[in-house]
């Protein structure tokens, strides 16, 4: 099976965070989310505000993959950018590499052109960090050894009525 497990080590997480913060500073965007194309959030930059980033990541990955499927129907390999315009806030999504996408939220303080311009630079920088991460062992330190879960120990418990 061709699985591509992803491991974000602490130093890589730091590098990605720096790239995301630099991107936000240059572009004027509000939030930056690095998302695996399977729908899982890899990293986040931006203010500490109430934003359901987990749901946003799943929906953005779904939207991006469906536009990729539309592109292929037109003979294009992929649409590399997705833009949703709202009344107050907008969303810009761009491809980082074949496994990840970069989502930015922004408002009237900047333009889609600025976000697009700096998202390209950020994507390149993050793509290089992720490529380096894929070459490293995924399970280190406390995760290096085998895993045991006690027989009968439930992963989830129902809330008592």
């Amino acid at each position, binding site marked *: *099976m*061709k*699985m*591509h*497990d*992803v*491991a*974000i*080590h*602490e130093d890589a*997480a*730091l590098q990605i965070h720096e790239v995301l913060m630099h991107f936000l500073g240059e572009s004027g965007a509000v939030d930056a989310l690095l998302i*695996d*194309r*399977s*729908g*899982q959030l*890899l990293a986040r930059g931006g203010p500490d505000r109430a934003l*359901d980033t*987990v*749901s946003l990541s*799943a*929906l953005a990955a*779904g939207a991006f*993959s*469906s536009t990729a*499927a539309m592109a292929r129907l037109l003979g294009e390999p992929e649409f590399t950018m997705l833009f949703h315009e709202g009344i107050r806030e907008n969303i810009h999504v761009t491809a980082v590499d074949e496994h990840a996408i970069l989502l930015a939220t922004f408002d009237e303080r900047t333009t889609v052109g600025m976000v697009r311009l700096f998202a390209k630079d950020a994507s390149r920088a993050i793509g290089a960090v992720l490529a380096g991460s894929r070459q490293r062992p*995924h*399970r*280190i*330190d*406390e*995760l290096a050894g*085998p*895993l045991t*879960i006690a027989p009968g*120990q*439930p*992963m*989830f*418990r*129902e*809330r008592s009525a």
Partner: protein
Amino acid sequence: MSIINYANKEISFKIVYYGAGVVGKTANLQYIHRCLPNENRGNLISLATGDERTLFFDFLPVSALSVKNFTAKFQLYTVPGQVYYNMTRKLVLRGVDGIVFVADSQWDRQHDNVESFRNLCENLGEYDYNLDETPYVIQYNKRDLPNAAPVPYLEFLLNRRARRVPVFEAVAVDGTGVFDTLNTVSRMVLLSGFAQEQGARHENA
């Protein structure tokens, strides 16, 4: 495809509830959402048509026990069951770590179950995934209905590959079998992921 984040101390996995239309995939997620403690679940997102049929997917993020100081998180997805939504079914399977195949127990739905199972194998193949190497379980849903086929017959139709997988009898709308299914598949996914890293892939159910 697991994601390990050493900075946040999280391990994340993706589980997809697969099956034909109206077999109870969404009902599974709705019950889990209703009955998990708030601190263990996020929002349930449903991308549905006007008549409550899943259009793209349902999505529910949940968190389980901690493993070696890492929080195990699972993202639960459903697929649209109708035949003509195959393109979106395929998209949802991207990066899947584990599968719950939900089958309708009623006699007149067996053709749909078998066709959906065949479709699952085909769609996994598009990503070069292989069902024989993917943790999965089968849930026989709607066991409360009077025209439910006997379990041995369902086993004959859906669970006769070289690797027999765990099966669960369920009534998803009232929660029967829902958590047994979730607990088993999530445990299989977690243990399977670590076994692969050790180079010793084996059945853990």
